[in-house]
């Protein structure tokens, strides 16, 4: 059972007492305090007994006997070290000196043994939360190889060797360790295996801590493991253990080792709270793999429930990085994200805003609460293209009139919200610059041709639609919607005022010929009835369009001629149409 801990204020004095460094004043002060504090009184007793035992074990002072022989021995060695040139050699290993390679090898062997031990630990315990086996995300260490290299006397090494191919898996390195389970299972396993940390290497500090110290001291063990060149998985686990307990130097260590520890270090820094998060933000600015891992960790934290990294984001953070993190945060308000976009113009903020359910409300509120400035208006127009709101229409139309490049796309997004009528009206009034008018129509027809057709027919503005469509088509030859739009306009527009528009549409169709897009049979089906239209000019134009779109000339040009003549004496149009049909068919008109 663990002894009750003394008051924090007196711990150092008690430690000094054990170490033999306590002053009389310090001891007197502790004694006075101990009179009123049972815990400290008990600790004082223990400290005194400890000191007494240590004093009793002091090595006897050396006598002067043999001193001269000792000195003689020193100079004898010095002389034997001299080179023939009489110069003292540089410091080098003598018979006591280490062989560095052997040392390093021994260190790696012990670390391998540590890894092997943890495997044994796993084999003796139920699977803990923090050590769950996962298919691929966790770092793995080949313990078969580790065990092969482990010292024979190391507990667990032989056991591990008996299990070739087993791997050390320490859970998802992006997730915090479940400390209590981790500790409990490891200690249980230590008991089960009879492992004695006192006989283990000094490279087993983590195990020592787990065995005999309270959880707050685990940081020390974790630091010890991080300071070695041990297996990545073991060091990753140590990093995650260190996380919530990391101090400023630990954070610096984690930052230094970020390249090798990767996600484990990032997780540790996240667990360390706001200061760790700030380090991640600074790492994110470095770019490369380190930066990507940092951003990934920040985004994961945003998506989690523990903290919101944006709260600790430095002001100078690259907005594109910040926005990537913000996208992952479910709690970030759309309005805040939109404000950030309006302030910076960085697209990731816009993307983040658009993913929020309340994005449209935020846009409407922004439009409502203040008239946008020029730069803001342009950005709001962009926002409208992603999440349109009705209240944005006046602003978008004003931007269109002013020649804002984003306005056509924004207007296209607003078609169902009054944008179609607004565009028709603006075109009819001649308020728009021709290039922006064309761009707006291209965008509108591309977005919803049927809606534009309906609006044009409803407003009796078929001529506007035909004209605008053709201009848009001329500006963007690959547009395929205008073909269908013209066919439908010719088929559906009704009334005297619409006749010329219908004929114009058909003549435009005849002029542009077949295009990619809707299959010809569909277009021809729409056109076929028009060839029998009572209006001979419309019928003749329909014949032209029919032929231009690949329809069979199952009637002779004479039939076209008759159709035209039904309308009265030959006109210039009559002549033009019959000549055109005759050229294409190779037949002479009658």
């Amino acid at each position, binding site marked *: 059972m663990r002894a009750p801990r003394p008051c924090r204020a007196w711990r150092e004095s008690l430690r000094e007492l054990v170490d033999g460094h306590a002053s009389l004043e310090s001891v007197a002060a502790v004694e006075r305090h101990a009179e009123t504090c049972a815990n400290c009184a008990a600790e004082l007793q223990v400290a005194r*007994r400890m000191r007494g035992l240590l004093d009793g*074990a002091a*090595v006897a002072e050396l006598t002067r006997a043999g001193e001269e022989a*000792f000195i003689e021995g*020193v100079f004898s060695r010095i002389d034997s070290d001299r080179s023939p040139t009489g110069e003292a*050699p540089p410091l080098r290993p003598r018979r*006591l000196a280490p062989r560095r390679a052997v040392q390093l090898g021994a260190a790696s062997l012990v670390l391998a043994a540590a890894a092997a031990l943890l495997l044994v630990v796993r084999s003796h315990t139920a699977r803990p939360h923090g050590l769950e086996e996962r298919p691929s995300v966790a770092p793995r260490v080949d313990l078969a190889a580790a065990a092969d290299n482990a010292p024979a006397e190391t507990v667990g090494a032989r056991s591990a060797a008996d299990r070739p191919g087993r791997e050390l898996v320490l859970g998802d390195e992006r997730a915090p360790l479940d400390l209590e389970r981790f500790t409990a299972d490891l200690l249980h396993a230590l008991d089960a295996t009879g492992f004695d*940390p006192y006989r283990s290497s*000094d490279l087993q500090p983590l195990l020592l801590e787990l065995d005999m110290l309270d959880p707050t*001291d685990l940081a020390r063990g974790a630091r010890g493991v991080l300071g070695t060149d041990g297996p990545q998985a073991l060091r990753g686990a140590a990093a995650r253990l260190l996380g919530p307990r990391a101090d400023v130097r630990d954070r610096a260590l984690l930052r230094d080792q970020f390249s090798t520890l990767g996600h484990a270090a990032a997780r540790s820094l996240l667990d360390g709270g706001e200061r760790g998060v700030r380090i991640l933000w600074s790492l994110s600015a470095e770019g490369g793999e380190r930066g990507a891992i940092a951003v990934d960790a920040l985004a994961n934290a945003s998506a989690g429930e523990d903290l919101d990294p944006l709260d600790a984001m430095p002001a100078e953070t690259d907005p594109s990085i910040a926005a990537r993190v913000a996208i992952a945060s479910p709690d970030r308000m759309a309005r805040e994200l939109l404000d950030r976009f309006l302030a910076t113009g960085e697209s990731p903020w816009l993307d983040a805003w658009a993913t929020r359910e309340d994005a449209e409300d935020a846009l409407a509120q922004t439009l409502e609460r203040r008239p946008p400035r020029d730069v803001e208006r342009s950005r709001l127009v962009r926002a409208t293209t992603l999440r349109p709101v009705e209240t944005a229409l006046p602003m978008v139309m004003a931007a269109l009139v002013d020649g804002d490049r984003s306005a056509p796309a924004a207007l296209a997004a607003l078609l169902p919200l009054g944008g179609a009528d607004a565009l028709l009206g603006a075109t009819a009034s001649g308020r728009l610059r021709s290039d922006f008018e064309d761009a707006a129509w291209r965008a509108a027809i591309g977005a919803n041709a049927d809606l534009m057709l309906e609006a044009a027919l409803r407003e009796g503005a078929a001529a506007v639609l035909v004209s605008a469509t053709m201009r848009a088509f001329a500006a963007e030859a690959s547009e395929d919607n205008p073909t269908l739009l013209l066919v439908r306009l010719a088929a559906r527009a009704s009334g005297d005022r619409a006749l010329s528009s219908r004929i114009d549409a058909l003549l435009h169709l005849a002029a542009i010929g077949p295009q990619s897009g809707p299959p010809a049979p569909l277009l021809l089906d729409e056109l076929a009835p028009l060839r029998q239209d009572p209006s001979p000019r419309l019928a003749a134009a329909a014949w032209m369009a029919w032929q231009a779109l690949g329809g069979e000339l199952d009637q002779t040009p004479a039939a076209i001629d008759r159709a035209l003549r039904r309308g009265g004496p030959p006109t210039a149009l009559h002549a033009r149409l019959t000549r055109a049909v005759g050229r294409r068919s190779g037949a002479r008109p009658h």
Partner: protein
Amino acid sequence: MTSRALKLLSPMEQAGTGGDPGAGARAIAERLERASRGDRAAFSDLIRIHRPRVQRVALRLVGNHEDAEDVAQETFVRAWHGLETLREADRPAAAFSSWLLGIAVHLSRDLQRARGRRPEDAAASLLDGQGPDALAGSMRTPSAITEEAETRRRVELAIAALPERLRVPFVLRALEGQSYDHVARITGVRAATVRTQLVQARRALRRMLGPLLDEEDGR
């Protein structure tokens, strides 16, 4: 100034520096300067001053007198070759002391590792010649002497059983009276690390010495 520090200066007092608190350091600095120019007599003085502590620390770490003396001698050999490096130190006397102990610690570690000595072997060797027979000359009863020897053996075993990373700072601090900063300088780690290592060492010892502490409690 602690009693251990006074012990350090006593050889200098024998060399005629008297009770002047700064005289010891000045005398050591002066001998260092001479020794760095090849003056063997001055270096011999330095060996006389520092040998006890160096050898004591080595004894704690390697566990037997023979190896401890070997380590101590080698420590001074290394020091002789490296005296030049101390010339620019702000406080050469203090720096020399820490430096020597650092060399001794590293050599002891190397020796222990090279030989693969187990802690209890080290403790047993350390106790050679210091069992009940060695205490027999005192005026205490045979049972008290035996009990004291057994207690001492258990304490030594507990210290020797500490992992090296804890044992070294503990020996330097609790048995050799070094400050945290000196221990840090000697072992080459941060002072904060030393503090935490010492907390761990004390706790480990307390756990291992628990029965002894209970026995004391029962008295």
